């Protein structure tokens, strides 16, 4: 491992704790807001049906936390909260599994790379959105035998739409984090 790669490596303080920055109540409130936005926002803006605020939140906490365990647990919590509002023909756990993986992988990436850069965050966000959509489609097909159409080009476009929303959202969350640290 040379100096340049060392520069990319993250060295986070072990004392940093997710729950010291964002309290449990804050996490629950944010999750609730994210789920409600997905529940209600398409009534106001029909194109917002593709907006995945819960996923963006899961990615953010995964990237901000190098320990994968809280990140994957948070992903599972958000996913199950979404599942509980999904149509009754979709069993609970579909989004839970997908977002658990997203949280774990996001935290794993943050262990190895410096993810404070906004560009890297957005690229990862775009990648995880595509992974999330594709893995969910695979699960519906494989586990539930539901033939749901999947359009990669459309999914990529929706990924761009989501990273456009992620940019200001992450800035706001960064500010919240800084204010709590202060």
């Amino acid at each position, binding site marked *: 491992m040379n100096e340049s790669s060392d520069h990319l490596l993250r060295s986070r303080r072990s004392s940093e704790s997710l729950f010291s920055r964002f309290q449990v109540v804050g996490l629950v409130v944010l999750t609730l807001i994210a789920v409600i936005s997905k*529940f209600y926002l398409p*009534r106001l803006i029909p194109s917002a049906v593709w907006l995945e605020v819960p996923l963006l939140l899961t990615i953010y906490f995964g990237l901000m936390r190098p320990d994968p365990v809280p990140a994957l647990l948070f992903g*599972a919590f958000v996913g199950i909260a*979404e599942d*509980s509002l999904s*149509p*009754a023909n979709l069993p609970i756990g*579909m989004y839970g599994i997908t977002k658990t993986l997203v949280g774990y992988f996001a935290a794993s990436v943050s262990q190895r790379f410096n993810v404070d850069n906004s560009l890297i965050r957005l690229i990862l966000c775009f990648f995880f959105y595509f992974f999330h959509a594709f893995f*969910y489609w695979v699960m519906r097909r494989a586990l539930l035998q539901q033939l749901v*159409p999947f359009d990669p080009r459309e999914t990529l476009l929706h990924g761009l739409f989501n990273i456009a929303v992620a940019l200001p959202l992450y800035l706001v969350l960064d500010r919240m984090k800084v204010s709590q640290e202060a």
Partner: protein
Amino acid sequence: MDAIFNRYRSYRSLIVLVVVIVVQVLYLAYQVRTGRDERLIRVWAVSAVTPMAGIVEATRHNTIGFLKDYFLLLDVREQNRQLKRDNDQLRLENVFYRNQLTTAEHAHALTMFQTKSPSRTVAARVIGDSTVSTAKAVFIDRGSTSNIEKGMAVVTPDGIVGKVAAVYPLVSQVLLVTDSTFKVGVESQKGHVHGSLNCGLGHCVVEQIQNEEDIANGEWFFTSGEDRIFPKGFPVGTVVSAQPGNGMKDVRLNLSGAPGGTEEVLVVLEGVHQTIPTNAVPEEKIAKPLPVPPSDKENGGALPGTFQTEADKLKQKYQQLGKAQEHVYGALYSNLPNFNAKPAPKPLVAADPDAPSKTTPNPNPPAKPAPVLGAPVNKAAPNTPKAPAVKQPRPPSPKPVLPLGSPRPKRPMEGPVSTPPSASPQQ
């Protein structure tokens, strides 16, 4: 022992990941295998989310139309400062009435449909969407307390919407017909060809129709009742294209209802099968069209009474005033008309039957009011050439001076002077 703990620490996150995933997969497999819906978790989540969404939706529904039109009014006010107060007041009233009318029309259409349809239904409002973007489902503000049960059909007067997929105490979840897992039994209007509606491919197709069957473009499809969800005879949509395919005909349908965009729906509590109409195309709208308006000639010119709204009447009045005072709206150096003046009453025109019906320009300066302004309209003798209006003194107006455009008492048979008792002796 330490080695085991160190090894566990290095694989801790992976072990937790595997455990969490396995637990969820097992739980999911349990649900799929047993076909059980985990009501407890769903009830908690729905109970936590839907009240807030219901409040937001009700607030939006009641205020957004008003606010939109109010901001439009601000633009109108900038255009004409002189008339802004009257226009604002009138248009605000119009907005209020228009909103009331729109709501009443929709509610009336639903009520008409409810009374017309033999099925027993209950009206509901859509308050939220599903959290799965690829699944088509909505939440409505009626639940088990309104006697709604799982599997009931959801329709609008225009067509079918979906079926109740889950019921909670105060809300229900409706799976839309556009969901990929939803199929509806349909039947064509003319040939009574049966098929299965599938909207999961991004467009709606009628499957299971043989190539030999005769399906024409524009033909209506109705529910056949074979799916045991929708009663027979509800309109579904019209055929957009019907092409022969491999074994089965490729029939594409345009849904008559708008399952994703509708805001108010009817849940069929007790469905009654109906016969499919053979000749008549189902009515797309309940409200009957208005009769043909009478022509201007029949009314003897444009009368203020023929206009629909107060704003139209006001506009007509100002146009008459501008014409009478030789004012050209929008022209440079055109003298300012006196908008407080009242237009010439009918008896003045009727006094000279040979005079052209078109109002002649008023030679008087605009600031000088017309001699007959404020004179009571004598309905009893409109054709008498005597009593020239010029000689009549302007009676004192005992009524409070109302701003322009304010609603006047709508009693056309009474003159303005006869209303207050103190003015009667002057007549």
